[in-house]
């Protein structure tokens, strides 16, 4: 035909990277960046909202539990503990809630393209993790600058607690996203479970308060990984007090149970997800 048409008439193909890991990593990155971007485009304040929301929650919870109910009386550092806990909790609840739709909400991709399906869950978690990382860094820097943090040797464990949280969230995300495809009630059930976990994990009041009422109840609550992670984060970052001790101090050797539970949830989530993966395309 004409020379104009021929000038742009061919497009040579590119060789894909040899490493499948590199391709998968790239896809995780693109999908999570997209999700992160889409969450904040269109709104005037954009990313700021993801900081405003936990801060609002902090403000309300501080007013209700600290000021009105005097939950943190006896520990002048309780507000910092509350802030750290709320940021971690926000990550937990938002990551699991969005993961619920990671498979079911991507029917088009699943029915029309081939790639390992776990990428969708990892991308969803990574996107929530991005917000969490920025919030955590901001909160830690500001509170440290204000002299509210107590950085000691035990603070070295902080990255491990965050890692435990991520492992737990990933495991739950795989479990929830794959089951949700076949069982849509899970969305509502998980909302209720989240509410129970929110209070059961002593996010907005000192864990020790449960102990003053019932040691048995406190032990039960302490077995849940979210409570253990949040309490141990508080203990590792903020000056210890009567109301702020490590979970091991509270429940003794039983503390291995929540840690094992986090790993177990991950393993079960992984197995269930893999088992259900071949059925996704047909069921969506």
């Amino acid at each position: 035909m004409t020379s104009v048409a021929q000038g742009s008439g061919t497009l040579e193909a590119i060789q894909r990277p040899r490493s499948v890991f590199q391709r998968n990593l790239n896809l995780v990155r693109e999908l999570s960046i997209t999700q992160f971007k889409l969450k904040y485009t269109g709104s005037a304040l954009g990313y700021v909202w993801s900081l405003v929301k936990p801060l609002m929650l902090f403000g309300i919870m501080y007013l209700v539990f600290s000021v009105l109910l005097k939950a943190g009386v006896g520990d002048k550092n309780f507000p910092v503990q509350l802030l750290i806990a709320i940021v971690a909790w926000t990550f937990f609840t938002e990551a699991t809630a969005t993961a619920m739709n990671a498979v079911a909400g991507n029917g088009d991709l699943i029915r029309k393209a081939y790639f390992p399906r776990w990428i969708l869950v990892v991308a969803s978690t990574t996107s929530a993790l991005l917000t969490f990382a920025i919030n955590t860094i901001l909160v830690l820097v500001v509170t440290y600058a204000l002299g509210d943090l107590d950085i000691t040797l035990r603070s070295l464990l902080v990255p491990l607690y965050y890692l435990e949280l991520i492992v737990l969230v990933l495991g739950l995300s795989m479990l929830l996203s794959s089951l949700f495809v076949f069982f849509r009630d899970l969305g509502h059930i998980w909302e209720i479970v989240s509410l129970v976990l929110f209070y059961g994990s002593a996010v907005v009041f000192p864990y020790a308060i449960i102990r003053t009422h019932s040691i048995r109840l406190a032990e039960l609550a302490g077995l849940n990984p979210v409570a253990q992670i949040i309490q141990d984060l508080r203990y590792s970052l903020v000056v210890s007090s009567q109301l702020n001790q490590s979970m091991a101090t509270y429940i003794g050797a039983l503390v291995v149970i929540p840690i094992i539970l986090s790993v177990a949830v991950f393993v079960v989530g992984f197995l269930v997800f893999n088992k259900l993966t071949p059925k996704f395309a047909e069921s969506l």
Partner: protein
Amino acid sequence: MSSVVEVSHLRKRFRLPLDKSTTLKYRVTHWRSSSRYRDLIALRDVSFDIPAGQFLGIAGPNGCGKSTLLKILCRIYEADSGYARVNGEFSAFLELGVGFNPELTARENIFLGGAVLGLTRAQLRDKIDEVFAFAELEDFAEQKLKNFSSGMQVRLAFSVAILAQTDLLVMDEVLAVGDASFQEKCFDTFSRYKREGKTIVLVSHDLGSLEEYCDRVLLLNHGEIIADGPAAEVTAAYHRMVAEHAVAAERDLPARLERGDPAQWGSRAVEFASVSLLDGNGQSSRRFETGGSMTLDMQLLVHRDVGDFVCGMAIRRADGLLLAGTNTFLDHVTVSSHSPGGMVTVRYTIDSLPLLAGGYLVQVSVHDASGLEIYDHADPAASFHINNMGGHVGMLEMQGRWQVGQHDDVPSSGAVRQTAG
């Protein structure tokens, strides 16, 4: 030569639940009826190999299992038994623009769509100007996809889809997209692939393009391969199958039942010796263009002194729907013969074919002037195909005109646009 694709005894069954049972309430209240479903067998024992460098077409009516086969090949569905193995890298275009997001810009969508294909951001960054040039979208790189026309979206999607270098390319009916000039570009790309000896699987309803590009075509029906061979042979078999189907549907007519062969019957006082379709140059053809000329050429062998008789023709869609028909009596044309053993030539010419893309069947008949005695009737006597060129949709070329007038002087309202056909 090694096989790029090996498919062996592939079976796939879908269980379609008769009731929606994905909620807890349903499970609890209907726990006893948990096994209420209907089995749909999509593939029953399908086996074939594709040697390297072959351009394979897969044809078949809707629901024949071709999409299921493609999805198993692309590892989207899992087979119940048997296997489908692809030796090497493959790219699947089951649909254009998979992974695209309307809220993102064209550039961002290239990174996203490319990532789904397995390409990294760094690789795509080097290539991005070429992609925009190929898609003819250089000025729209930072525009959000949702503001693109569907033609622009298709151009971008196709350009991304062909970016990954692969040993096997799997395509599902992507040919019938885009405007005419871009379609030509797509066809150029396929021709280039064919020259480069790529292994390609193409699923299409468009028998014309299957015939043009494929070395070999598989015909699927009810989940089984019923024909496998050179494109021309298999498309002919497909036409036959469709025709038999249409005839079978009409068999209820008691009048038809009394006669022997339902496809061709009559007293044979006058018989069709040959029926062919000619293009504008008088050459026999089975491919025509919308708006082009087509002549139905019928050679009649006369066995009896029949006097005046009537010759008729009709065009059906591939699925049997009657589109148009006429005969010499209705059009006041006289045909007659008094010499047994003689030949009569009857031609019907359509100067501007009003049909759009698709496969069509031609039915012909000759009968006496009263219509009581059928001499010969053949359905279908010929078939032809029209390629999608202009982008118009549907079956008929309307041959209409658009008119646009602007009336800036209309009081109280600004510009009024009017369209009239």
